[in-house]
């Protein structure tokens, strides 16, 4: 009976095994920047296929594949490159996942990150559609939560903190549990994220240059790529020089002075200069009347002349790999959950620098802008924001729930 069954099913069994072993064990490739190309084609009204093909070819030569990453050997950049990442760690983070007897883990990016951030780091991993906010697309080189100035790259410490601690209020987990004492897995992941970001930014900027210079592809693509690569790597190397220094005011530890500062902060929050209430709402519930999108969404929609809320108009954007546009929600400050860090210094930096890639602007500061806030006023605002959770809790205790406050705000 069994022999007969095996005899009958032998072809099916062999086919099943072959399909599994051969057919589905393909080598992954990095995906092209389809959405950015869509934007460029909309901007220039020209087909960018030739440029995209040339750039793809160059990127494989320079950066390799997800299984075998390479690092460009551009003249004069070896020292620059070694200051940004380690090739040994990069190789360890790449490829399929495995581990050895010494507990060294390989393929870390695919093990820990790619399910959300995608194999290319484009924020289009399999699970991306379900996450709010969407996973970060590393390729434009924009990072939201960092200690550096707006427009600068984050430091390695910034990335380490986010990966190690996770991001509350999002799907980004804390990877502290995988940090082994004897190795540097998280450092390897950081190297890989930087590698993907640099690769992606070179791709984008090269495509942009090619779209605006028809002769570039045929004559000087490599030279341009080298120039861009050098510039981008230098930005990463110099990121620690761009850290926004923070000094807490002397009154910060004094309870009575801090209480007075909170009241000053309340006025500043509602005022026209900081204009926090415009988006975050009067009570901080995030129920302002602004409807906007982050830069990752705008990149393929608004900048391509597509209205993100127009279901029909976004179809071509979705067809090239864009994720359904979702309006960005200003934070509900009453929750006391801060994605970019809950330390006073973190809040301070986000006020004075804004949040890159989002509509959150940097506040105008004195003395550069006489109408702006002084250092002391910014700290008063920090004190007020950090106190919002306490105020919300008190309101709840006295019967005024956050929901009713929010509802009244929306009604206004």
């Amino acid at each position, binding site marked *: 009976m069994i022999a007969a069954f095996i005899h009958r099913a032998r072809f099916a069994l062999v086919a099943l095994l072959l399909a*599994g*072993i051969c057919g589905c064990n393909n080598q*992954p490739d990095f995906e092209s920047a389809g959405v950015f190309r869509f934007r460029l084609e909309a901007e220039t009204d020209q087909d960018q296929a030739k440029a995209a093909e040339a750039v793809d070819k160059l990127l494989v030569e320079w950066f390799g594949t997800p299984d075998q990453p390479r690092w460009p050997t551009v003249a004069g950049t070896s020292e620059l490159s070694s200051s940004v990442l380690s090739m040994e760690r990069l190789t360890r983070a790449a490829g399929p996942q495995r581990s050895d007897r010494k507990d060294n883990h390989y393929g870390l990016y695919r093990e820990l990150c790619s399910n959300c951030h995608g194999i290319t780091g484009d924020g289009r*991993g*399999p*699970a991306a559609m379900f996450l709010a906010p969407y996973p970060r697309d590393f390729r434009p080189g924009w990072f939201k939560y960092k200690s550096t100035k707006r427009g600068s790259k984050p430091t390695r410490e910034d990335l380490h903190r986010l990966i190690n601690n996770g991001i509350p209020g999002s799907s980004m987990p804390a990877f502290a549990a995988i940090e082994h004492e004897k190795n540097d897995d998280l450092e390897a992941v950081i190297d890989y994220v930087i590698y993907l970001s640099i690769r992606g930014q070179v791709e984008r900027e090269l495509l942009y240059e090619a779209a605006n210079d028809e002769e570039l592809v045929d004559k000087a693509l490599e030279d341009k790529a080298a120039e861009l690569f050098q510039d981008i790597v230098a930005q990463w190397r110099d990121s620690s020089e761009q850290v926004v220094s923070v000094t807490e005011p002397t009154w910060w530890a004094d309870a009575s002075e801090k209480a007075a500062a909170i009241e000053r902060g309340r006025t500043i929050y509602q005022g026209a200069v900081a204009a926090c209430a415009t988006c975050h709402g009067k009570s901080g519930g995030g129920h302002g009347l602004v409807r906007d999108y982050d830069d990752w969404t705008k990149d393929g929609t608004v900048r391509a002349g597509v209205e993100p809320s127009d279901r029909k108009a976004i179809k071509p954007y979705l067809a090239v790999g864009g994720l359904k546009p979702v309006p960005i929600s200003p934070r509900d400050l009453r929750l006391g*959950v801060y994605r970019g860090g809950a330390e006073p210094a973190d809040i301070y930096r986000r006020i004075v620098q804004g949040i890159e890639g989002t509509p959150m602007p940097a506040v105008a500061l004195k003395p550069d802008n006489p109408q702006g806030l002084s250092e002391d006023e910014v700290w008063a605002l920090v004190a007020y924001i950090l106190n919002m959770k306490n105020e919300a809790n008190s309101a709840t205790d006295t019967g005024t729930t956050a929901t009713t406050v929010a509802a009244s705000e929306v009604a206004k």
Partner: protein
Amino acid sequence: VNTAANTTSADLGAKNANCPSDQSHGWVVFIARLLTATTFPLIWLGGLVTTYDAGMAVPDWPGTYGYNLFAYPWQAWIYGPFDLLIEHGHRLLASLVGFIAICFVIVCYRTGERPLIRNLAWLCLVTVILQGALGGARVLFDARTVAMIHGCFGPAFFALCVVTAVACSGIKGRSEVGVWSRWFVRFAVATTVVSFLQLTIGAQLRHIHPWASPKFFLMMVHLHLTFAGIVLLGATILATMGRREPNRTLRRPAALLVGLVLMQIGLGLGTWIVNYALPWEDLSPQLSAYIISAKGYWESMVVTMHQATGSLIIAVSTMIAARGWLLSGK
């Protein structure tokens, strides 16, 4: 009813019985149950291997780092990395299951077991060998898809063990066949099939390639949710039908199945939360500060429990189908 229910196992356990509902030799019953009982922890451990991405913690097969599987130094195993501990442990436990399957075949012949049981014993052995080969192929070819097939084949083997154990154990209460509805058996079989399909969809999500498209993942999630509803419906119908059945051997597992499916839905929700979180701010301000701990203890336990409970659901619905089949005298 009582007369039938109180029939002693000695009465039912005559050797060489030809009726499929009769009990086998005591050793055969014991080994069949042992095989089933050891398969469930094996599935658990296999799930843990997947949860911790430890499938490639031992790069060779059938040996372990050049050693014979059984000769690998136990100190290096026990005190080694966690991934190695569970992957090598999974292989050792699988070997034990394979060894039990071999013993089962031998004992079936030694006790002169009826052809049905002998064939089932052979099928168990062939299946466990095939499953081992799939596990080996997963390692040697480093193929995630084979890992998925291996993950689905395990519960199928578990269900086969359950069928074998039920067939060996015999069934009490054959005199109640008259009140038995053939629809019950059909529903039990249908629930088993749907549960298995549900498990394969879950395996797609669990072993998804990082380069799979978000749309494919979205489709699989929706399919998984739909099938969860179908399985719950099937289990509820079975339990409702089972309530009219005086025989406890069917009534109880049918009620257990509903409980397991409900628990599984809760675990499914938990699995989603510990993998991808929820938009907490919209649901619960109190939980908005929750941060997923990647590969944290509880996170891993929830995910693995979800996978193992899926196998258990298949096993229980298979048991109901097999018992119903025996009761109906087919």
